[in-house]
């Protein structure tokens, strides 16, 4: 039973009006080198199949999946492989990357047109998705073909397209829904072919009534009876996987379960459209939409970007800065990564580049916890963040796990709401990393 909402959550300033009405603009000709980190998904890094000096074409596979939970990478320009070396990525790490010097010719390989979707076998669909290099483009980057291969596909009741885009400032999914609703809906119906007993749900927050209307119309026009549009309450983190499943189906999973355990598969808008491109058109994942926004950007915009393009170029293309930025975030303000250098590549999971003239975090003055309980009120994981942060600071792993610390989804609501400006999410996050590392060792 759909509940349309969940307990907890917050309503931060949305900031979507900055870029909401800007149509997707193709940033076609990157000036600098293109950088492809071999690890831009969860799982084993891809392994390079080109060498320094090789000439590559658009759509040529340059790295193949390094295992089952992995994903191949394709060139997005034609040019020469300049180097295969560690390059800095958004997290600040140096990751082994293929660097391609753009020859400016934009020569492409011939893409072979796959068979009609209706005659494709399930394995063939999964294989096309796998070979298309499709990963979860909402941020986590989990390889989509793995997600779509649960142990018992017949037990999947719902395939949910996550159209909520609950992160403030982000409008890339919104623009996709407005501009390419058929691709989204058809992509979802392709995924539904894998699950005979499933219904498709397009889950949209109710702050996007135009999307709801357009998607409903598209579903009706295409006469797809298995797909419905569900309007959810606008609240962050409505798009968090567990909260989304609960809001749309009333089923709840905890951190040790997979969506498939509740009979659900969840995919983000851009991922579903990439599935469409891979299966219907035979095109691998080469582009993504990046919202370049924030109060420092002269002309906030939604770019369609060749993966591998440097962020710095996107800022210039958006008119540069009108104010000195204090903080630049790759992704949304709630879960994105703050970057100290804009010369990092756009990857499969880059959703936005947010340039803020005021960094709330560095100006905030952390004071003592007054036990106000606001973090408890807003926590979608229904834990007690202030206590978990205390356990984390005391490095008390036992108490932390006993108090359900592992159920935290790191959404950031507690840090956002805390009047004492404590770094709750950060403390809990580090503790979770330590415990997960311990578990791996065992």
């Amino acid at each position, binding site marked *: 039973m759909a509940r349309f909402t969940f*307990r907890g959550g917050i309503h*931060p300033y949305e900031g979507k009006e900055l870029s909401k009405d800007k149509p997707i603009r193709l940033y076609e000709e990157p000036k600098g080198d293109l950088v492809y980190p071999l690890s831009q998904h969860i799982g084993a890094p891809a392994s390079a199949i080109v060498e320094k000096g090789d000439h590559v074409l658009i759509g040529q596979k340059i790295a193949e999946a390094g295992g089952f939970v992995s994903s191949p990478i394709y060139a997005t320009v034609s040019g020469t492989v300049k180097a295969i070396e560690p390059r800095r990525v958004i997290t600040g790490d140096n990751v082994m990357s293929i660097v391609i010097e753009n020859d400016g010719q934009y020569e492409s390989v011939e893409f072979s047109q796959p068979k009609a979707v209706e005659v494709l076998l399930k394995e063939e669909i999964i294989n096309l998705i796998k070979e298309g290099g499709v990963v979860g483009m909402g941020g986590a980057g989990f390889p989509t073909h793995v997600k779509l291969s649960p142990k018992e596909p017949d037990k999947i009741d719902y395939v949910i397209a996550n159209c909520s885009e609950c992160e403030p400032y982000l409008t890339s999914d919104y623009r996709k829904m407005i501009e390419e609703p058929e691709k989204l809906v058809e992509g979802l119906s392709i995924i539904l072919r894998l699950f005979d007993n499933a219904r498709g749900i397009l889950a949209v927050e109710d702050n996007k009534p135009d999307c709801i209307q357009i998607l409903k119309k598209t579903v009706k026009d295409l006469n797809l009876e298995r797909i419905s549009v569900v309007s959810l309450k606008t609240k962050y983190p409505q798009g968090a996987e567990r909260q989304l499943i*609960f809001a749309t189906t009333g089923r709840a999973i905890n951190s040790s379960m997979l969506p498939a355990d509740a009979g659900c598969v969840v995919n983000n808008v851009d991922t579903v459209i990439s599935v469409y491109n891979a299966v219907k058109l035979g095109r691998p994942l080469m582009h993504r939409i990046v919202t370049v926004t924030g109060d420092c950007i002269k002309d906030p915009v939604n770019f369609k970007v060749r993966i591998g393009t440097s962020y710095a170029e996107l800022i210039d293309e958006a008119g540069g800065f009108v104010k*000195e930025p204090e*903080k630049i975030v790759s992704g949304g303000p709630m879960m994105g990564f703050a970057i100290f250098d804009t010369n990092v590549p756009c990857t499969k999971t880059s959703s936005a580049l947010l340039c803020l003239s005021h960094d709330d975090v560095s100006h905030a003055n952390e*004071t003592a916890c*007054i036990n106000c309980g606001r973090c408890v009120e807003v926590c979608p994981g*229904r834990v007690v963040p202030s206590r978990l942060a205390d356990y984390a600071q005391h490095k008390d792993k036992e108490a932390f796990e006993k108090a359900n610390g592992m159920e935290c989804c790191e959404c950031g609501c507690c840090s956002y709401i805390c009047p004492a*400006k404590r770094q709750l999410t950060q403390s809990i996050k580090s503790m979770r990393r330590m415990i997960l590392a311990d578990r791996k060792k065992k």
Partner: protein
Amino acid sequence: MKDMMQVSSNPHVRSRVTTSMIMYSVVIALLPATVFGIIQFGWYAALIIAVTVGTAVLTEHLFCLISKKPSTVKDGSAMVTGLLLALNLPPHIPVWIAIFGAVFAIVVVKLLFGGLGQNFMNPALGARCFLVISFAKYMTNFDCDAFTGPTPLALLKDGECVNVFNMVLGKTGGTIGETSVIAIVLGACFLIWLGVIDLRIPGMYILSFAVFVVIFGQNGLVPYLTGSSSSFFNLTYLCAQLSGGGLMLGAFFMATDYTTRPITKKGQYLYGILLGILTGLFRIFGPGAEGVSYAIILGNLVVPLIEKFTMPKAFGKGGEKA
């Protein structure tokens, strides 16, 4: 553009609400009761309020200086403690007792236990109870120019009649800030509107106390059944119990003190009920007419236990619906 940007862990945006904003909103919410107290009891009450607040703030500042820590007076919590303590003092208390109480509240109850957020007992109430025990003569004498003789609650205890209308307005004897139900509720509404407090604790507190009074109070069910009363319900008595003494001030401003109430939702309901029962016990079966201060302080001590048993279930483990 700078060479390096600010980096930090997510989230990168923060709400505007800060601890000091919360504290100052409590001060504002206490203003109606404060102003009413000054109008009713005169300039001496204003002096007591000023001295108590001033001493509380100054004590915290000096303590921070002596212990070589950054001063924490700007967060406004010392001001709240001072004001709450002043509102809980009789209008004609000697100034030195007020000063003594403020120092005790800040140093002994709050700072020695670690300062803001660490005290296990409400500092204002802790100090009030300390003063009641140490200076009973001054602390229980509510005589002033406007009102002499026992407070309405004391009259009730002796089975005498009171004017409930005057009690709701606040035109009775009592401590500086507790008398006017209207002024207190006005301030409480402001805090509820701001989202600083909610009705969970005050609601359960007042409700459970009312139930207790209906059952055990004068003309209540139990006296009726045992034959010591001829009627089983007395509305005037109930209303007088609800508007008398420190119940309203305690329920809305002291029982809701963040630091000393349970952080869990279920725990807050439970805590409210516990306070209602304790207050009823002290008022009806205890030797004195009042009971709110002791009830809340005793409740404070049980908070860790309440929290232990009311920890919420996590999402996906049964907690998603509650």
